[in-house]
């Protein structure tokens, strides 16, 4: 609504001239400009920037927008709102990612297998049926108070 049509994103660039024009439109070098592959997904000529989150950008540089770590006119990543500092962080991890994944999967699978095992073969202290007092709760279960309740003994001597 604010910019003229030729400064807005358009269809996938086919000729080198279109690529150069698109790179100039997005304020990028022609060599840096790489559009998304033309798979019909709806990206058009939008540039494919490296998938780095805003956590990785220099915190001490004087950005025009310090909270977004973004300069005026700089092309924004397609998933810019995912890579903000409150959300996804792609900074290098202290432990290699594959090691983290391996350790996590080992732990998770061990715990799941042990829990499943415990469900199939439960183990607990010996239990017997529950014993109720007052002749097996004769009056509470609606027995006639005028009749003699049957004597219930839970022990053997």
């Amino acid at each position, binding site marked *: *609504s*604010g*910019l003229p049509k030729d*400064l*807005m*994103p*358009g*269809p*996938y660039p086919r000729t080198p001239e279109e690529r150069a024009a698109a790179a100039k*439109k*997005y*304020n*990028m*070098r022609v*060599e*840096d400009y790489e559009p998304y592959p033309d*798979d*019909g*997904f*709806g*990206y*058009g000529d*939008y540039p494919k920037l490296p*998938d*780095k989150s805003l956590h*990785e950008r220099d915190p001490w540089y004087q950005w*025009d927008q310090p909270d977004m770590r*973004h*300069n*005026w*006119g*700089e*092309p*924004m990543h*397609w998933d*810019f709102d995912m890579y903000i500092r409150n959300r996804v962080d*792609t*900074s*290098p*991890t202290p432990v*290699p*990612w*594959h*090691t983290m994944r391996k350790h996590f999967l080992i732990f998770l699978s061990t715990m799941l297998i042990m829990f499943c095992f415990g469900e199939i073969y439960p183990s607990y202290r010996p239990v017997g049926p529950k014993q109720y007092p007052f002749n097996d709760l004769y009056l509470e279960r609606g027995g006639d108070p005028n009749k003699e309740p049957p004597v219930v003994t839970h022990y053997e001597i």
Partner: protein
Amino acid sequence: MAAGPPPSASEAYRPNRFVSLPAELDPSTYDVSLEKRRAEAERMAIRARLKRQYQLQLNNPNPPAVIEDPALLRWAYARTENVYPTFRPTPKTSFLGVVFAIGPILFWAAVFKADRDRKEKLIKEGKYERPFSVF
């Protein structure tokens, strides 16, 4: 049987889809060729030009009400209005559309129908135990 020596940092830190490599293990850090420096200089020139445009608007004695960021406008336009004109039905998009758009509807319709049929059968046979029954 002892395992081999533990992998070195560069072997363990294989590049992956989710996090970046640390700067020390990234080969582009140690690339000091002239092409790279020329590229960096060109990028800095673009950045300086954009900064100048922005600062001129910012420090204008009669600044505009809102300093529009063309990059932001392009980003919003690309994600909302430019998707339909540039979409094209291909085998891949059709397959994904079927799997993610039509698949769940059919799946849940089948699940609910089967559940209701099972309950109806139990009610007809008189075997259905009503939950939350007040009787």
